[in-house]
């Protein structure tokens, strides 16, 4: 695709605008779609990712809620089960813990336990990740959610994927957790002009290389791609995969890449224990023999609001480069 083709087919917008566009299009298409959350009305959302929707669709379809996460999700789930379609905004992923009961115990089980009589088409949209806000406003708990049968989990890293994945989420028949990252909101990127969904379970191959496969998602794609660039300058060629969808996982794309490179490093911002990387690594071991594997994630400590300690706890390009070189030199894996 040439630059002029790309410009013609896509328009550059802020990350939050990709979210607004997906919501606007889906709300127009489906009059039953209703948004619930804190500060999403006239205020437009903490990241202005709901800007304009209150004016366009009114207070009944863009509903401000009290600070009561269990009720936000519970009401969203109940309404969805009874024939509406809902998106519930939980500003910080840490606070989703307060609402796991309706999401995990009810929504994720509903289709199974009623033998298909009821389904809960609800999207829980939340924002993960560290950005100077401390121990209870920084966590990435997507791996917990991946372990729940009946839940789908997606986490875009670009405005285009935010748009396409959110649209798909809003057409699903069961519960979806859609995860943004605080550090993605200042970014902008090209989004196709033509409306289109991105299917779940399809990872994106974002950079081709032959020596090592780097697998990441969400904001961690930024340091991962920086590391790939630096490794390239040192003669290490990286194949980079953006998962986009965590449940379902696209193991086929990872497997194809690692067959070529023989080496995989996963990069996530959450905890390593029972993390996304652990899951991918073991599934890969079940598919391929003799692969070198390393995982990168947060250290086993709370994420402080202290700038020095926050940086010390999280992966960055330096740590990724070091990990890859150590693994390739045979000291890890």
């Amino acid at each position, binding site marked *: 695709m040439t630059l002029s083709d790309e410009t013609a087919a896509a328009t*550059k917008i*802020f990350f939050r605008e990709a979210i607004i566009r997906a919501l606007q299009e889906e709300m127009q298409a489906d009059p039953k779609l209703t948004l619930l959350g804190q500060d999403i009305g006239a205020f437009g959302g903490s990241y202005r990712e709901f800007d304009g929707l209150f004016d366009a669709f009114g207070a009944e379809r863009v509903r401000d809620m009290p600070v009561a996460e269990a009720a936000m999700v519970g009401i969203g789930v109940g309404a969805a089960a009874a024939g509406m379609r809902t998106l519930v905004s939980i500003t910080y992923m840490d606070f989703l813990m307060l609402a796991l009961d309706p999401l995990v115990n009810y929504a994720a089980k509903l289709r199974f336990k009623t033998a298909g009589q009821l389904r809960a088409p609800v999207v829980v949209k939340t924002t993960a990740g560290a950005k100077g806000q401390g121990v209870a406003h920084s966590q990435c708990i997507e791996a917990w959610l991946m372990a729940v049968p009946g839940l789908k989990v997606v986490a875009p890293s670009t405005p285009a994927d935010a748009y396409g994945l959110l649209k798909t989420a809003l057409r699903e028949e069961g519960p979806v957790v859609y995860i943004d990252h605080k550090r993605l*909101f*200042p970014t*902008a990127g090209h989004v196709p002009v033509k409306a289109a969904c991105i299917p779940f379970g399809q990872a994106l191959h974002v950079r081709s290389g032959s020596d090592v496969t780097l697998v990441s998602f969400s904001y961690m794609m930024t340091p991962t791609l920086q590391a790939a660039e630096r490794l390239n300058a040192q003669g290490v060629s990286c194949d980079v995969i953006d998962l986009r969808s965590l449940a379902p996982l696209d193991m086929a794309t990872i497997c194809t890449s690692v067959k070529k490179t023989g080496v995989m490093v996963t990069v996530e911002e959450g905890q390593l224990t029972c993390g996304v990387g652990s899951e991918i690594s073991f599934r890969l071991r079940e598919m391929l023999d003799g692969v070198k594997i390393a995982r990168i994630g947060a250290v086993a400590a709370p994420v402080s609001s202290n700038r020095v300690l926050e940086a010390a706890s999280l992966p960055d390009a330096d740590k990724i480069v070091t990990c890859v070189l150590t693994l390739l030199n045979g000291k890890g894996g």
Partner: protein
Amino acid sequence: MIYQLQVPGPVPDVEEVRILEWHGEVGRAFEPGELVVELETHKAIVEVRASKISVLRDILCAEGDWQKIGAALALFSDEPDEPIPDDAEQLTAMLVDFEIT
């Protein structure tokens, strides 16, 4: 003297802005404190104001265009008819006041 108006910074978290609105066409003279251009970040508006008497000579980024922090937005001059040199990209940065709202 000819100056280059650049995207002012630093603005927290911001690498790139979108040009929202120019407040004047080429040829307009600005007084100190007058609003020249509004720039859009992911969640705020950056108001760029003239810090001295100067004339807008050329607009390098149209409304809706994107530009990085520190990159050129427009050319200004002290006098309305000073010739614009060919190496406009090398010009001195114009001092501006800016406010994030």
